[in-house]
């Protein structure tokens, strides 16, 4: 999946300018960058929500083949967790023996079961992240977009969410692009990093390539150099 010379403007505000980057189909693609550098704008553009030059994006599935979990955690507040999960399952027309990944089963037993009858509106931010990410993983799509899936989540649940998202790539052979501020949590998975800053892509490649390019041993140190 390739982005070539992508430029996006909101009114008078240029958000992305001649952006070039690549996303891998067999890795977790993580978009990093300071706040306001266009990470959500890039996801929105991939999702077909922003007008752009048709040649700028190639290799991406159509809008109908996308799942997109937005950054803001809004959903029907009066629905229970059970009703929300049922909605996603019914929309996908899941059979009773629908094949969930092992990580999804773990998350269900460890986290979701305990809050199954709680209303979505009464959940904490972290709990909503877990539930809505779980629900998005129930959808059968080609490409999954997650905007800040770890926002407001404690370290234990963050690890479970990452494993659940990574299983989409490793077990279900789907494509995933997500944004985050915390690259260290992803280090144990095969990742492709895209770093955005100043309207452009500062780096696009694997974590090893990033470390080699900056001659650093730690990813966060390498990122600091790239973002300078």
């Amino acid at each position, binding site marked *: 999946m390739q982005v070539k010379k992508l430029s996006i403007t909101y009114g008078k505000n240029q958000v992305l300018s001649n952006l070039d980057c690549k996303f891998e189909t067999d890795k977790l693609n993580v978009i990093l960058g300071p706040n306001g550098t266009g990470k959500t704008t890039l996801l929105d553009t991939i999702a077909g929500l922003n007008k752009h030059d048709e040649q700028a994006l190639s290799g991406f599935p159509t809008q109908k083949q996308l799942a997109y979990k937005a950054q803001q955690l809004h959903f029907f507040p009066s629905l229970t967790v059970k009703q929300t999960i049922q*909605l996603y399952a019914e929309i996908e027309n899941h059979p009773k023996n629908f094949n969930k990944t092992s990580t999804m089963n773990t998350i269900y037993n460890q986290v979701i079961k305990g809050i199954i009858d709680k209303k979505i509106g009464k959940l904490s931010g972290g709990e909503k992240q877990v539930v809505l990410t779980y629900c998005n993983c129930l959808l059968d799509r080609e490409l999954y977009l997650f905007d800040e899936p770890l926002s407001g989540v404690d370290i234990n649940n963050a690890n479970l969410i990452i494993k659940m998202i990574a299983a989409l790539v490793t077990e279900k052979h789907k494509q995933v692009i997500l944004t985050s501020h915390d690259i260290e949590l992803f280090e144990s998975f095969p990742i492709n990093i895209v770093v955005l800053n100043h309207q452009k892509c500062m780096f696009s490649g694997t974590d090893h390539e990033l470390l080699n390019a900056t001659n650093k041993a730690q990813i966060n140190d390498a990122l600091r150099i790239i973002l300078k």
Partner: protein
Amino acid sequence: MNKVKALYKVYIVSSLNNKVVFMYNLLLPIVYLLATNLKYFFQPVQTTNQELINTASYFWAYIIIVTLLNMVTFEMLSERESGYFKELFFIVGSKWHILLADLLAQVTILVLEITLFNIVFLVIFRTINFGILLGGLLATLLLTIPVTCSSCIFLILKVKAQTAPIIETITLFGMFTLLGIKNENTLIKIVNLLNPVEYLAQNSNNISLLMLGNIPSGTYVIQFITITTFYILIGVWGLSKFTISPIENRA
């Protein structure tokens, strides 16, 4: 249809949880009915079917238009601004499915509301009138789709969450004020024909009278088809222009 069915259930749960809106949509017209007509319960007067249906039809028009504006059109604007229309769109895959599911849920609730209202109405006037009972229900089932389509004109507006209730109130006020203006001026007549409240009142009136054997004129049928087609075209256009992403807040 699977997606519409799943989402329909969600909208029913969500709507029934919203008791304040239910009260506003149904209780207010019942209170107004009681305030203006309770005397007829204690001192019955002779009224014709036409008079009763004419009176009831304006109440139905109010209940239907307020429900559709609050729970469908402006609800979509609110869902967009809060970010969850975007979330819904990528689950369901179609703006049409979302609108249809919400509309079907509101029609279900409207059938209950109109039935309850009609029972109170018939008790007050101490009569059993199948024109009113069936007419109200048929009007709800036949007229909500074109009226919802006409309200989709608001979907093209770049409206912020705080502004939407103001626009809704002004619109309702304007529609009901226009009802009171009876003028031979052609422009005013055309504007009144296009007024969704007038459309609801007039057509539910004629549907109810049809139940009692009154066949409408050819002119009326042509007028009904023309306005209904115009409303549907507005709906298709309005929904196609409706943006999924919020205007004010990023999501």
